[in-house]
């Protein structure tokens, strides 16, 4: 009975030949490779999106700080650069420049300085609080926006910032506006 069963199997159901198995393996390999490549491309694309979103969020936080500082400030001024600000904070005020200083005053009389500084050489945009040695945020790969020569400017009471972040994957433009409530 047992030998009869084996014989029937051998006669009616042979295995694959070598070429058939090879062709099958080849097709499986191509399909698997395609799926794997697709997943890799998708993961890479997701990674790029996450990186770009992270860079965008950093600038958005910068914008939020800018707007908030603008709202609470008692005064603000734009300077061409840090040296101009340090040399003469009153006399060197400019219409546009790469340094923006907000000044706020607590009820007790203490003065709070918040400074935004764009460094065109290092291509960084930094935010300082209280003193110029306390850096709170830093953006990298920053350039001035198209058509502008400086990061900060003022126009009839409206202080504004324009910058572009040039990441490895995308160029992103940002704008921020502020107007101290006490100056309106």
């Amino acid at each position, binding site marked *: 009975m047992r030998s009869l069963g084996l014989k029937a199997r051998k*006669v009616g159901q042979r295995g694959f030949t070598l070429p058939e198995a090879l062709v099958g393996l080849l097709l499986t390999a191509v399909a698997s490779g395609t799926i794997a490549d697709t997943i890799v491309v998708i993961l890479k694309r997701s990674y790029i*999106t996450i990186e770009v979103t992270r860079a965008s969020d950093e600038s958005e936080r910068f914008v939020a700080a800018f707007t908030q500082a603008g709202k609470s400030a008692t005064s603000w001024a734009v300077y061409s650069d840090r040296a101009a600000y340090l040399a003469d904070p009153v006399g060197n005020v400019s219409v546009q420049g790469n340094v923006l200083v907000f000044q706020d005053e607590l009820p007790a009389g203490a003065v709070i300085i918040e400074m935004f500084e764009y460094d065109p050489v290092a291509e960084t945009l930094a935010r300082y609080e209280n003193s110029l040695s306390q850096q709170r945020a830093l953006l990298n790969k920053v350039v001035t926006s198209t058509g502008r020569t400086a990061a900060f400017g003022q126009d*009839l009471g409206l202080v504004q910032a324009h910058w572009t972040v040039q990441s490895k994957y995308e160029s992103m433009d940002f704008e921020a506006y502020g107007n101290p409530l006490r100056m309106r």
Partner: protein
Amino acid sequence: MNALVFRRVRQVRGFALLDPLIGILVFATVMLGAINFWRLAEYKCARARIDARVSQILRENTDYVTYVAYDLLPADGAELRSGFLLHPLDPNTGRYKDIYPFSITATVTTTGGSTPAETKQIVLTLAYNTAPDPQAADNPPQTIRTNALTRVKG
């Protein structure tokens, strides 16, 4: 002996017509699935960036209208800004591309004109062109209107 030879010939026959057809169908299904999966992922990533950029542009222009001096508020129908939503890097040229054009216009309704109580209600409309779905071949216009923002002259 003849019977044995005959049996072998039957065993080493080629594929039936149906066999390769099924194989091709399965293979095509896998490839199609992979391509559509990739296309959907690509679209989702692009969509996420577009939505973030749209929010950013609306926020920037709302800030502008909120903080700019009253006399410098845009006139009715004025275009506040135009450009492109995204600037992805083109790896072939090494330059940033401009994709998905947009423009933002202001609709301004003035009440109590030429009095200290004059107010302006400003609605911003962002019009932009993007692909509405992963398989879209064209970029039809889409619009977003903000809530009315009120500015008082006095």
